C-alpha cells in the first residue's frame, strides 16, 4: 500500500506492507519521519490522517495521551494502513542522512538469557542477517506472545554483527518483561526493527565523553565506550562514566566496567553511584579500578566533573526522572549547550 506524507517541507511517498507499521515502513524507505521511542510511549511520531484508513494498533499505547482524536491524529509507530493513505506530519522531514544506517525489520532468536541482578538480565539474540549500527542505538524487540514492541539499546559495539546483546530490566506490569522473566525463553523467535536512535557516538567526535546512566540506561553507554575504546578515542580525549543505581545489589557488569577502565587507564574514569545506601568499604576495596559514590547520579556527575566541562559531549540514558534531573544539571550548572548533549527522550 502507498503512504503519501505531507510535511512542513517536501512531501514523501513510500510503500507499506500489510500489517507493517507506517513509521517502520517510512524509515525503512529512508524517510526521516519523526520518532523517539518507536514503541508507543513518547508521542513524537504522531501524524494526522487525511485520505485512507488505518488500523491504529496497540490500544493501550501510553503515547496515545498525546494524540487528539478530534484532529484525526494517530501514532505512526503503532498504525498500519488498510489501504493507500495520505497523512500529514507537522515537522520538517528529510531523507535519512547517509551516515545513518537505514533501519529494517530483522528476525531473531534468543540465544541466552543471563540474570545480572534480581531484576536485570542480559539477553543475547542472534539475528537472521548482519546488522550495522552506531554505538548508542537501539532496536525495537517484539515476541509473538506479547503485544507491541519495546525499545532496547545494544550493550556492545561491532561494525557489523549477527548477534546483539541487550540489558533488560524487569518493569512492574511490563507485558514484555513479565513474559521474559517468567521462564527460560532461550530459542524463542523474535521480531526486531532497527537500528534506531540519535544519541550516538562516531569515532571522529573531537570531544571528551561524559556518559551518565541510570539503571538499564547503562546499555547504550557500554556500546559507546566499547566503540570509543576500540578506536582509541581515549588516547586523545578523556572519558567519564557515571552509573547510578539504588543499592549495591542493583549493580551489574562490574567486571566489564573494570575491563573498560583497565583499557584506558588514567583517561577513562568510571564511577558507580548508589542513591539509597552508601557504598560499603568492601566494595571499593574489591574493585580498586572503579570509584564508588553516594547520592543521585547527576549530583555525583556535577561533583566529579566540576571545572572539566570544556569540550564535552554528554550522553545520558535512564528512567525519566533521572534524565530530567540530569538535563537540568547539564544546562543550568554545567552550562552545556543543547548540541553538546545527546539522548533519546523516551517519555
Amino acid at each position, binding site marked *: 500500500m502507498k503512504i503519501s506524507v505531507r510535511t512542513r517541507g517536501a512531501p514523501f511517498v513510500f510503500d507499506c506492507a500489510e500489517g507493517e507499521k507506517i513509521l517502520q515502513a517510512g524509515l525503512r524507505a529512508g524517510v526521516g519521519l519523526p520518532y523517539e521511542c518507536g514503541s508507543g510511549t513518547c508521542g513524537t511520531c504522531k501524524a494526522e490522517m487525511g485520505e485512507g484508513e488505518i488500523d491504529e494498533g496497540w490500544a493501550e499505547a501510553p503515547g496515545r495521551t498525546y494524540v487528539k482524536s478530534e484532529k484525526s491524529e494517530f501514532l505512526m509507530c503503532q498504525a498500519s494502513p488498510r489501504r493507500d493513505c495520505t497523512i500529514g506530519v*507537522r515537522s520538517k522531514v528529510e531523507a535519512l542522512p547517509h551516515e545513518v544506517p537505514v533501519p529494517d525489520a530483522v528476525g531473531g532468536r534468543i540465544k541466552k538469557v543471563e540474570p545480572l541482578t534480581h531484576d536485570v538480565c542480559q539477553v543475547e539474540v542472534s539475528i537472521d542477517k548482519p546488522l550495522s549500527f552506531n554505538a548508542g542505538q537501539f532496536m525495537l524487540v517484539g515476541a509473538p506472545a506479547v503485544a507491541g514492541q519495546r525499545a532496547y539499546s545494544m550493550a556492545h559495539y561491532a561494525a557489523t554483527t549477527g548477534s546483539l546483546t541487550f540489558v533488560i530490566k524487569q518493569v512492574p506490569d511490563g507485558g514484555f518483561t513479565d513474559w521474559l522473566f517468567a521462564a527460560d525463553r532461550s530459542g524463542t523467535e523474535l521480531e526486531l526493527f532497527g537500528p534506531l536512535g540519535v544519541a550516538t557516538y562516531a569515532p571522529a567526535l573531537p570531544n571528551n565523553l561524559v556518559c551518565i546512566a541510570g539503571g538499564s540506561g547503562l546499555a547504550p553507554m557500554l556500546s559507546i565506550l566499547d566503540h570509543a575504546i576500540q578506536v582509541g578515542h581515549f588516547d586523545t580525549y578523556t572519558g567519564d562514566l557515571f552509573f547510578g543505581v539504588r543499592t549495591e545489589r542493583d549493580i551489574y557488569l562490574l567486571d566489564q566496567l573494570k575491563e573498560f577502565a583497565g583499557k584506558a587507564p588514567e583517561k577513562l574514569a568510571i564511577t558507580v553511584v548508589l542513591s539509597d545506601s552508601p557504598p560499603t568499604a568492601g566494595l571499593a576495596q574489591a574493585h580498586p579500578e572503579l570509584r564508588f559514590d553516594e547520592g543521585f547520579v547527576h549530583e555525583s556527575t556535577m561533583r566529579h566533573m566540576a571545572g572539566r566541562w570544556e569540550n564535552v559531549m554528554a550522553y545520558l540514558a535512564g528512567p525519566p526522572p533521572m534524565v530530567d534531573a540530569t*538535563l537540568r544539571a547539564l544546562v543550568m550548572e554545567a552550562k552545556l*549547550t*543543547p548540541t553538546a*548533549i545527546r539522548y533519546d*527522550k523516551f517519555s
Partner: protein
Amino acid sequence: MSWQQVCTTGDVDEDELEEFEVGEITVLVANAGGEFFAYPPFCPHQETPLSLGMIDGDTLTCIKHLWQWNLKTGEMRDIAECPLLLYDVKVEDGAVLVNLAKELKYDYQ
C-alpha cells in the same frame, strides 16, 4: 478581554515559571531576574508544558528537547526551530498585567 491581571509579582519566584488560568486562557508567566514575561503554556515544538522549563539569564530552555529562546524576545537560540510567542506584559503596583486581547497559539493547537 485586553489587559488582565494574571498574578502578582510575588506569585512567581525569581528565575521560575508558573502557569495561571485567566478565564479560558492559560498563561505562563516567567520571572527573569525580577522582570516579568508571559507566553502560551506549551513549547512550540511538541506541546510539552514550558512550566517545566529552565531560566538562565535571558535564556529559556524547554526540558524535553532543549529548544532555547531569548525569553525577552522569543528569538530562537541554538537548536530551536520555532520562535516563542510572547504576550505584552506590564507591572503595576505589584500586579502582573497581560494583554490577552487575543489568545496566542502555535499551529499544532
